[in-house]
């Protein structure tokens, strides 16, 4: 009988393998133990072992892997465990939900690992459909995961975790959905719509990540008074948020809202910031593909065609800035790759209230303090913007994401009132 890819070959591709057989794979998954223990010793040890592997020399010095390694290091996992422990008391036990089926995004190479680890820490069994698009980074990460999982001490985890590449067909989607207590769908609207066609068991639950849009809110005066060093830091932070995934990550800013007082001339500060971002682009030797550069011309000019008073500034192939005369004309559709819309706001609370909708996810802030952010979030009252972070932190994944607390989503509570 065809052997489905097992956990030892956790990331073997089933796509090109004629041995792949979805029904025997499903049989393997359903025969396996459906759960371990939330924040069990093996689960926690696995995280710290993987952290050591990623932060050691083995996996290279890729910043994405280092970030993941940092997130998995003992102190960080301990914090998650503490937060998790507070969910329990004498009258409440927290237990795994069971089987988790995760659909990972193709291009944010490390995201599947965060999402999978949160399910694993919840004590669940997991099937993770890894993208069929291989990148060096994904392969490095998968190899590191396999090395750690292959250790005898993690044999039990190995028996209920599968990271697989599967054919992208209806039969596979239907079969894996049919046995999922929790289904996690990354990858945007089209993927979410696709998987919604395949039912979960009656008590199954969906965690979905549709398309999102993000912005930066920058205080113009803070940029004006920043020292050169502070300015360079802000530009580097902006670069990280915007360019790490070619501005294609859902939390990468596409709109920059400049906070300005009435009557302030923001032109010098904005000019200063854009020049600093240009320098940051140069420091990182980031180069836009030619196709992206042409797309940005077309998107930018299309925006200019819609309303009078737009200013189109193509500073380089890497950065195009489109200043909008008012936010009513703003279209979130953006080709990415360094196309920024900007608007000078004399009344941020009112402008945000008018603009923000459910697709808005992250506000990366500079010169905006926690109280400002709290009051803005309070005013928006859930209409949109699920994360307020400092500029440079837009891409930092955490267990609280898109309004979900993923640690809680992967567990359920048992009431004990005896």
């Amino acid at each position, binding site marked *: 009988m065809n052997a489905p890819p097992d956990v030892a070959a956790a990331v073997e591709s089933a796509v090109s393998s004629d041995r792949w057989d979805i029904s025997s794979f499903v049989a393997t998954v359903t025969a396996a133990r459906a759960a371990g223990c939330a924040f069990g010793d093996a689960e926690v040890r696995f995280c710290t072992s993987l952290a050591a592997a990623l932060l050691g020399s083995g996996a290279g010095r890729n910043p994405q892997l280092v970030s993941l390694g940092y997130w998995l290091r003992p102190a960080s996992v301990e914090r998650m465990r503490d937060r998790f422990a507070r969910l329990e008391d004498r009258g409440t036990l927290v237990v795994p939900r069971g089987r988790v089926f995760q*659909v*990972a*995004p*193709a*291009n*944010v190479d490390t*995201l599947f690992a965060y999402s999978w680890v949160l399910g694993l820490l919840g004590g669940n069994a997991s099937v993770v459909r890894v*993208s*069929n*698009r291989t990148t060096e980074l994904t392969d490095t990460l998968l190899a590191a995961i396999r090395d750690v999982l292959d250790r005898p001490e993690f044999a039990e985890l190995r028996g209920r975790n599968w990271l697989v590449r599967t054919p*992208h067909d209806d039969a596979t989607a239907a079969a894996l959905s049919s046995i999922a207590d929790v289904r996690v*769908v*990354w*990858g*945007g*609207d*089209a*993927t979410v719509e*696709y998987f919604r066609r395949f039912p979960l068991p009656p008590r199954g639950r969906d965690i979905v*990540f549709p*398309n*999102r849009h993000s912005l930066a809110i920058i205080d113009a005066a803070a940029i004006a008074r920043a020292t050169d060093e502070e300015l360079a830091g802000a530009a580097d932070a902006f670069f990280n948020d915007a360019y790490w*995934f*070619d*501005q*294609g*990550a*859902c939390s*990468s800013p596409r709109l920059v809202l400049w906070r300005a007082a009435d009557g302030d001339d923001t032109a010098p500060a904005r000019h200063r910031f854009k020049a600093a971002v240009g320098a940051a682009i140069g420091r990182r030797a980031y180069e836009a*593909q*030619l*196709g*992206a*550069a*042409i*797309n940005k*011309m*077309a998107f*930018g*000019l*299309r925006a*200019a*065609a*819609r*309303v*009078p008073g*737009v*200013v*189109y500034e*193509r500073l380089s*192939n890497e950065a195009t800035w489109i200043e909008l005369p008012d936010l009513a004309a703003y279209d979130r559709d953006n*080709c*990415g*790759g360094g196309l920024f819309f900007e608007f000078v706001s004399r009344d941020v609370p009112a402008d945000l209230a008018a603009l923000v909708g459910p697709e808005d996810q992250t506000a990366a802030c500079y010169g905006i303090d926690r109280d400002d952010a709290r009051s803005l979030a309070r005013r928006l009252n859930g209409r949109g913007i699920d994360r307020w972070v400092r500029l440079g932190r837009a891409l930092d994944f955490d267990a609280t994401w898109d309004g979900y607390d993923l640690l809680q989503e992967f567990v359920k509570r048992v009431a004990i009132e005896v």
Partner: protein
Amino acid sequence: MDPGLEQLMATEQYSVDAPTKDAALVAGMNQLTAHHRAHCPEYARIVEAAYPGGSEAARLADVPYLPVSLFKSLDLKSVADRDVFKVMTSSGTTSHVPSRIALDVETARLQTRALSTIVTHYLGRSRLPMLILDHPDVVRDRHSFSARGAGILGMLSFGRDHLYALDPDMAVDRAAVRAWLKRHAGDDLLLFGFTFMAWEYFFEPLAGDGIDLSRATLIHTGGWKKLADRAISTDAFRSRLAGDFDLTRIHNFYGMVEQVGSVFFECPAGHFHPPNFADVIVRDPRSWEPSATGDAGVVEVMSLLPRSYPGHAILTEDLGVVDGIDDCPCGRKGKRFHVIGRVPKAEIRGCSDTHERAA
């Protein structure tokens, strides 16, 4: 008609040297920019946003240009809806959204006349028996002018006794072709088709049939991508047609639905040449200034024909090289250039792409 354009059309094609032509084109282009600013509000806003210093160009390279994909995402026209005589569409390759090019009677006439000056330069004034290497359904629906249908319709008037060589299943009608060739034995002939389809559905199937096309001129267009995918070079294409059919008079041309009529024919020396009323600029893909002769860049096409839509200066998604100016061995003046292929599609990373789309 603009006297400058009139003169450029009336003058023998390819006889104007580059400095003379540049001066005439700059004047004509500036007039068109002003015309479209006055009549196409979207275009006016684009120019105001992107060229705050003004749109009067001192040299051709300074004329405001639009990326070709804007004709897919915007309805750009400089005439009232009631004056739109027909709308040309093309799917292009970057998306499934077609370009929509609105033509009024005047622009459509200019296109026809322009194409005529080019084709008669190569074929003379007499109309030759014409074999179309395609099937007739492509032009049957006169309301949907696809690029393919429009290309054929545009060429029909240069021939007579037309025969479509293929049936709707793209199978060559051998009996009809043979009868037609027999009827025109000893005549000069005109063959027209799209490069890949002509190769795949006409020349390949008939390669062993011993057909003599030594009196024919083949005009073809449509790009090399599909043939390049099969590792068939322009040289292999020419030598196969010479070997199998004795067909040696072959003119490829480069053109697009966004600038119909303003096409770039390949001369006997194998170079594309702009006609008098059009030009090409190859732009360096980082500075966007004109590339040096011999250096590759992004092809911009310019034409004095578009009056009903602001398409007089268009940045294509093709890569090309200007090989020389006023120096072609064939004797034609102005630039000579070749096209390398498409700009690779941008691969943007990001979150919304799990369900790999068939784009």
